[in-house]
């Protein structure tokens, strides 16, 4: 198992968990408008299924929000 920080909250995943699997496990709806960065590096949606998470990674999952 690995510990990964998701939006600043520690979550536990299986080893070799991909970004896509983490998103599914966390309960984000399929087709939701999400942007992902791992360790402050953008991960395109095209690469979610092949990007592996590692112990100690910090992943940000963002949604549209109001802004000025």
């Amino acid at each position, binding site marked *: 198992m690995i510990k990964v920080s998701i939006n600043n909250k520690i979550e536990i995943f299986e080893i070799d968990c991909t970004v896509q699997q983490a998103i599914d496990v966390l309960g984000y709806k399929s087709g939701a408008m999400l942007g992902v*960065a791992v360790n402050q590096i953008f991960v395109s949606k095209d690469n979610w299924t092949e990007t592996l998470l590692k112990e100690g990674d910090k992943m940000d999952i963002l949604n549209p*929000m*109001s802004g000025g």
Partner: protein
Amino acid sequence: MVDAMDDAMTWAVYGTELNSRFFIGSALYPSPEIMQQAIKASGADVVTLSLRRQSPENKSGTQFWDYIKGLGCHLLPNTAGCHSAQEAITLAQMSREIFQTDWIKLEVIGDDYNLQPDPFGLLEATEALIKDGFKVFPYSTDDLVLCQRLQDLGCEVVMPWGAPIGTGKGLMNPYALTMIRERLPDLKLLVDAGIGKPSDACQAMELGFDGVLLNTAVAEAINPVAMAGAFSKAIEAGRIAYSSGIMPSHESASPSTPIVGTPFWHQQQ
């Protein structure tokens, strides 16, 4: 005069024709419904928005998006809250994928107290994003040299502040803004932030700025929908005034009523 009126309505940024010079924010409204009504009342073609962390059970992001997409406006995602070039670059890349636009309102904050842009991080991020194909709308201070450097990097538009974000203080340094306008005549300029009253927006347009970006002054009005309309009229009036040629000011009085034919006292001499 007809040309001045037409010019007030239509212009282009990064090859996109716009029918308003008002860029409006989507934050701080009392409700999503009022946000939607205010944006419609503003007549703005461009709406700013952002990305934020949300848990999967929080549906507010989806709801917000439903309100925004129905407006049919061009989207200008921001990098609000970023304190380094790398943070801003990453957020811009995420925004491009989600919102399907290469426009980015680039904010790199250097000081948390007055939310002043970091000029060095701003230049670093601008250079990287332009190389990556972005159309950058940098939020800058009113420093002439910084605006020049942003233009040199390839920005077609720069957005100096009128005053710190959310203060409503209006144009704190009209001299600096005027100097930027005069020294960089080919650069498209919007005043971004600090506008409090429609007259502030009108003043920016009278200085020759191409547009105004604001949020708080509308969203925190008692009647945001009516205030959005007031700002729309002020921005248009200011632009028409600028295009029409504002008279120079003079130190001494000059009568507007003709002297010739003045009754009474002149004849008594």
